[in-house]
């Protein structure tokens, strides 16, 4: 209700100039509010940090730097009325700031660095298709929790809660360690996407200069989860030994699967759910044995959270027993199917893909897209991420709600 009021009151509310008047007469609401956004861009949005980050030292202070570097970067704005402004570019932090403040985009996307200023692209594009092309771009990853709907029972679609967020924790852990240890990258930024997932920016010079083929090779290296609506098996491991990356990733996935997801998602609590897991084991004798044990135990003991873990342990024990050689890998397959990161491959494969800038405000949730420290990502709580109204209140830019 409060949100509706704020939206209705939008027309008669005027914010003049860069000095924000505390908004009177309207309570601060949790949701998104375009008037607040204007204040946020004017007072809090870190234009300078974004500029310095994306300049990568080409900031006109160092001799021999590439002065045109930042100006060749594409920005794209989404305006309130769903108008997209692509190929915006800025030569200085003041230009960037001025444009953001004027247009007050509900979303800012960052694109590639092109060979020429994107604004002037038409002058070059006419000659042939090689005239205007991206030359640098961070290696990016996008993981959306909506892609996990078949393995989470707490929420669906764009909703997230603390029970399913651990899926994102696994994604960060698996990808982050591989980018550092396997690929040798060091400058990695993880950002909460504001609603339903995480974004990753790999900013090392070497990463920015990768061509599309090399990007695809990294994406494919990390691509283990191959589910789509028409394939049954989501993760299919080769029989026998696994690549060191797969060994490490399945250890991480299994750890979080066992410690968190099995119980938070109640994966073994009822027949429908455990049948879905048993379906992945091709050995009839093992599955019927497990099924029998679990139906038995339902009668004897009452359901509690521990049942999920104990059932998983039993299944693991059966599959890893000496009696059933060759079934071992299904422990890993199950854990990977339920927990391994599901990447949006196309985002990572191509240089010219856009990705939302950090510190944007998600227009639906009002959440600020804050960075996540991969070292302590277990502690990240998406439900307590500051909202637009909260940061404005904290900075005394609007009157708090009573």
């Amino acid at each position, binding site marked *: 209700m409060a949100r509706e009021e704020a939206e209705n009151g939008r027309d008669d509310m005027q914010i003049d100039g860069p000095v924000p008047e505390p908004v009177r007469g309207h309570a601060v609401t949790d949701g998104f509010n375009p008037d607040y956004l204007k204040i946020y861009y004017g007072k809090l949005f870190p234009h300078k940090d974004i500029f310095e980050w994306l300049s990568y030292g080409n900031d006109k202070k160092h001799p021999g730097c590439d002065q045109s570097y930042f100006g060749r970067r594409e920005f794209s704005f989404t305006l309130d009325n769903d108008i997209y402004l692509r190929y915006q570019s800025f030569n200085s932090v003041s230009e960037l700031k001025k444009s953001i403040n004027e247009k007050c985009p509900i979303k800012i996307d960052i694109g590639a660095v092109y060979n020429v200023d994107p604004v002037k692209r038409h002058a070059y594009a006419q000659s*042939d298709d*090689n005239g205007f092309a991206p030359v640098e771009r961070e290696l990016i990853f996008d993981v959306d929790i909506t892609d996990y709907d078949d393995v989470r029972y707490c929420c669906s679609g764009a909703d997230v809660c603390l029970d399913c967020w651990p899926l994102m924790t696994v994604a960060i852990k698996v990808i982050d360690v591989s980018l550092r240890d396997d690929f040798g990258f060091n400058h990695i930024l993880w950002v909460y996407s504001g609603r339903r997932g995480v974004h990753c920016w790999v900013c090392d010079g070497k990463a920015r200069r990768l061509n599309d083929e090399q990007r695809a090779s990294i994406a*494919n290296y990390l691509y283990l989860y191959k589910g789509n*609506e*028409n394939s049954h098996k989501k993760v299919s491991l*080769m029989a*026998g030994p696994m690549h*060191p990356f797969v060994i490490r990733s399945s250890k991480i996935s299994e750890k979080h699967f066992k410690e968190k997801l099995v119980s938070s998602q109640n994966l073994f609590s009822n027949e429908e759910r455990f049948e879905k897991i048993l379906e992945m084991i091709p050995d009839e004798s093992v599955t019927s044995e497990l099924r029998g044990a679990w139906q038995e135990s339902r009668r004897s003991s009452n359901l509690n959270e521990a049942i999920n873990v104990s059932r998983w342990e039993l299944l693991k024990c059966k599959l890893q027993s000496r009696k059933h050689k060759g079934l071992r890998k299904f422990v890993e397959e199950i854990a990977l199917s339920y927990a391994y990161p599901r990447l949006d*491959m196309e985002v990572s494969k191509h240089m010219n893909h856009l990705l939302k800038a950090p510190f944007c405000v998600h227009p639906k949730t009002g959440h600020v897209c804050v960075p996540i420290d991969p070292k302590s990502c277990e502690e990240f709580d998406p439900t307590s991420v500051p909202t637009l109204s909260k940061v404005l209140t904290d900075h005394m830019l609007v009157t708090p709600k009573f």
Partner: protein
Amino acid sequence: MEIARSQRRTPAVADVVLGLPLYRSAPELQVRLEDFELFAIDRLRVLKGISDGLSRGKKPDEVETLVRDLLKSNMSHPQASEVINKDIISHFVLRLVYCRTEELRKWFLSMETTLFRYRFRLESSEVQRALMAEFDLPYKAVSNAEFENVKEKLGQVADSIGPKKKSMPNADTIFYKVPFEEVPELVAGRRVFLLKGYAYVAMNQVSSLVVTRFRSHLSKALVLTNRKWTSTIREREADRLTPIVESLSTSYLGPDYSQPREFAEISLKDIDQLAKSSFPLCMRHLFEKVKVVVIQSVLLLLHHKSIIKKNFPGVGLKLDDALAFWKAEFSRKIGAERFDKEYAYGIRHNYGKEGKRTDYTPYSCQKIISSTPGVGDHHGCPFRHFRSAR
């Protein structure tokens, strides 16, 4: 390369390592016009044969045999000394032929690279080493001390790629430490051990290094050739080479659906019937899904529609009919008004009436096969992405 009617030729010895040309620069050769076309057709037979073999899912060993046979039957020449020239001439002619569009370049690049890869594999290790030197690959073999540190991991990788073959790497196995970006195909297939940005490439994987160099060089060269072609050659050779070049690319690749040609228009009332009888399997699946999915969720569609939509112009459905189709399908869920507001633009865009005003061509099989459908996606090539019926 000079084109002349004279038979006189100097053998192109430079840039050839023991019978395997690297095609890094066009040699000074004189070529008879008939040879220009005939050699190109012969090479095209080889490339086309490889392409067919790959799409039938031939295994590496089978492709190796195939390449050997194709070369023998098509690329020989009555004069032994001319074999190498024929090889080089035909390559450069086809480079001209296949530089002209992105699609053509992609195909040619892929087939020439495959051809080179297998020719490399067929060579002795002596020649392979010579080729590595020729490409100036500055990699040093991993030292014994370093090998000991990563021995276990290298063993795991070797195990994971060659299941039954017990060829555990030992101190005698030569490994090269290479920046991972130099061996994208080995990285993509997880066939190398990666540590801090370096790939440990075994001697028997070295072809990948050389092939990557070959490929990136050819890729750049094709773009340059295309520039030269559009800026000067096409015009200058309008009476002589241009007709040959233009007809060569179509003579072997089958019909080209991407060019708007004369086609019958179909109307909306026929589309259900046509979907059953004439849509390719991937389109038919999407089409049926669209009708079902609308009832389940509009959100899902946001993604699929961009693919099925793009194909509607190619099917011959008129814009007004396409709008009517999507409107009918969508309005069940979201109402006609919201449809007009939110989706009509996208459809008009696909017909080149909005935005960039490009008439989109249908996605090619190649594009659909190489896409990676994710969770909740219904598109993709049925033969590649769908599970087999159990």
